[in-house]
């Protein structure tokens, strides 16, 4: 009957996702569905789950999944009817089937085999639906039948394969298992969908697989033992789905949609006509016709590859030419720079007796300056830059001594402000009488900006500083090793005298108060006071000696108060 004629058995224990082709999608699922074979209830399919995909309709039996399940290709459905149901009669969907539409000669199994396109040699992956696997996934050329491949494309293999099939025929016949192809080289039993051996990559004898398949086709396992009367009336060409547990409406709409979509026909070539090509194929080989032989097609691909390579070649050579042109230009630039240099040197001789640059007179009074210095100076003045802010560099100087002196002069300007310049700028020591050496070094180099002074040079410059500064700035190293630059009021004796006077006048003071008074940092003040204490001019009152930390005014624990020295000259005035 129609059920046996149009459906193919499937193992329902496998999940539906695994049963589907790669390009197949599940659209709807409904359980509690019975099957009518024609007008009669099919006794073997009372209840099960029906899945509709965009290509097929699966019936998975609820009780005997392995033996009673089947699928139906939707391409065979010509028409559908819907019956809403009445009282105890459940709603039904009738599928009218037709034989004429498609009767695929190819076995459905071919979809599960990987195959190689004889045109572009692309190895098509297995698992595609029969319609999709009929054309190459890459170039869209329809696939010729497997038999013709083995005979025409690789004729050299023919004797080998027949030989192999002959040698393994006994084995294959004994095992009677189409799922194993013995490798002619290593005898490994490969899966029938393999074309080469999984172990040694030897080409497997396809003949064996084909022959077993043909056998299977001639007597398939699903073929019933007793075929029913094969009448060709309309009844036998229909199948009914009885929805015993509802869900019929959404399922029917899904089925209609699936049938309308005709996914099986999208990439399906017309029967007997190989002219249908994919879009990519058309644009790539628009000048070629597929009806000409496939060797021409092959040549077309090669041509495209060659054109691409040629394009790349041209691009590369263009880029190289640009690079060369750039190098030529660079030579020009260098020449231009040299010319500019010469012109500036020439103009500097005129600026030497030009009265407007007063700052120049300090250094350019001697006409024996090195050429580089002249160049730098002149170019800077040409550009309108003030010479006052220009850092002194070694190449401007004649010898080491002058270099040091010029540096000292520059440093003096940084510290005390320029004598000649605008007084508003001020130096680092304008407000402060004492300053740490590291701060000076950092400040000086920031002021220079270029040609920074290393610490060693800086230390060499310091002794020269006294000559160029008013008041005299000298350096001093405190107990902790901290070096400072200071003006005369911050020398050892002067500072001690000042502190003693302060303490005598205003009473004891804490370090913080003295630091505030002197405008120094607390750390520096502590250092300075320690030196004063060393001289015995002051004595300390450690805050740790207090009985109560918060008696009266707030006392900071650990803070040292400084007193004028009470002890020197003290005589006992207590009880005798």
């Amino acid at each position, binding site marked *: 009957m129609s059920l046996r004629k149009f459906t193919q058995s499937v193992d329902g224990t496998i999940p539906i996702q695994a049963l589907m082709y790669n390009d197949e999608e599940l659209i709807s699922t409904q359980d509690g569905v019975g099957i009518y074979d024609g007008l009669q209830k099919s006794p073997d399919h009372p209840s099960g789950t029906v899945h509709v995909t965009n290509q097929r309709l699966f019936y998975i039996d609820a009780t005997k999944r392995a033996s009673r399940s089947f699928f139906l290709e939707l391409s065979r459905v010509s028409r559908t009817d819907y019956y809403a149901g009445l009282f105890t009669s459940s709603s039904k969907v009738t599928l009218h089937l037709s034989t004429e539409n498609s009767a695929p000669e190819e076995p459905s199994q071919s979809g599960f085999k990987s195959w190689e396109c004889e045109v572009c040699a692309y190895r098509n992956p297995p698992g595609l639906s029969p319609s999709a696997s009929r054309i190459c996934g890459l170039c869209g050329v329809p696939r010729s039948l497997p038999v013709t491949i083995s005979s025409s494309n690789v004729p050299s293999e023919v004797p080998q394969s027949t030989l192999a099939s002959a040698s393994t025929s006994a084995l294959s016949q004994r095992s009677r298992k189409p799922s194993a192809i013995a490798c002619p080289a290593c005898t490994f039993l490969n899966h029938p969908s393999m074309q080469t051996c999984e172990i040694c990559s030897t080409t497997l004898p396809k003949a064996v697989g084909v022959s077993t398949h043909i056998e299977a086709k001639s007597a398939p396992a699903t073929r019933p033992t007793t075929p029913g009367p094969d009448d060709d009336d309309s009844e036998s060409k229909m199948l009914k789905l009885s929805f015993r547990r509802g869900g019929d409406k959404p399922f029917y709409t899904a089925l209609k949609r699936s049938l309308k979509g005709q996914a099986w026909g999208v990439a399906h070539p017309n029967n007997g006509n190989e002219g249908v090509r994919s879009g990519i194929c058309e644009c790539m080989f628009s000048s070629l016709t597929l009806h000409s032989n496939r060797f021409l097609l092959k040549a077309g691909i090669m041509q495209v590859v060659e054109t691409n390579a040629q394009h790349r070649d041209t691009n590369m050579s263009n880029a190289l030419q640009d690079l060369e042109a750039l190098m030529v230009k660079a030579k020009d630039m260098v020449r231009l720079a040299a010319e500019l240099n010469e012109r500036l040197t020439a103009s500097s001789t005129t600026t030497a007796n030009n009265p407007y640059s007063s700052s120049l007179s300090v250094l350019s009074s001697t006409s024996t300056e090195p050429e580089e210095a002249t160049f730098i100076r002149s170019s800077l003045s040409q550009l309108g830059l003030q010479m006052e802010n220009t850092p002194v560099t070694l190449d401007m100087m004649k010898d080491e001594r002058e270099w040091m002196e010029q540096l000292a002069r520059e440093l003096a300007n940084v510290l005390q402000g320029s004598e000649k310049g605008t007084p508003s700028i001020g130096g680092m020591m304008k407000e402060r009488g004492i300053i740490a050496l590291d701060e000076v070094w950092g400040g000086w180099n920031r002021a220079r900006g270029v040609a920074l002074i290393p610490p060693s040079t800086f230390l060499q410059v310091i002794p020269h500083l006294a000559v160029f500064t008013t008041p005299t700035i000298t350096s001093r190293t405190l107990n902790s090793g901290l070096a400072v630059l200071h003006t005369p009021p911050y020398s050892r004796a002067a500072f001690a005298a000042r502190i003693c006077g302060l303490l005598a006048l205003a009473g004891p003071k804490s370090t913080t108060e003295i630091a505030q008074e002197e405008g120094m940092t607390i750390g520096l003040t502590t250092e300075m006071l320690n030196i004063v204490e060393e001289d015995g001019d002051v004595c300390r009152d450690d805050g*740790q*000696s207090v009985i109560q930390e918060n008696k*009266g005014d707030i006392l900071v624990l650990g803070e040292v108060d400084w007193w004028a020295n*009470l002890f020197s000259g003290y005589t006992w005035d*207590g*009880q005798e």
Partner: protein
Amino acid sequence: MALSTHTTTTDFLLPSIHSAPPFFTQQLHPASLSIATEQWIQLILKYARHRRLFTIKVEDSEAPGNNWDEVLRNERINRKVLPSYLTYILAQMVSKKLAVYEPPKQDRSVLIYWRLPEEWAEVLHDWVSSTGNLNTIMTFYEITDPPIASPLSGLPIPLLRQAIAILSRSNRAQIIAIAEGEGVRFFPSTGKA
């Protein structure tokens, strides 16, 4: 700030420097430190004699409520001597032989020699002669805790031993073992030679 002397509740006249906060701090400058320490030693000796105190401990500076509060603390200026400074002062006293560590081999407690052991020996012999106890055997207890208060009342036993030892060197005393422990017999001085 004018510093002034102060009379304590025990009728002791504190020196003016005791009102100066730096006096309570261990000075870093060596000269200042030696002067301050000198004043401290003098203060401790004089106060000990005033109160007849024989020992001073570092603990006395750590917490109030002992005999030395008036000296080691000055509530009026909110200052106290730190234990570290007192330890230094005691060490200086021991090195100047004005005190001795008692018990020995530690540095937190001293026996103060506000009279030197030689002076104590004379005081002891004078007292024995004046009370007519020469040539009689006396226990240590009879000397340090007599019924009538004497200059020797409360004298620590170690100091007493030292005084007796000095006397016995000039044959004016002799240690005798008796039933209750130790006794001492004094002899009249023989021309002080």
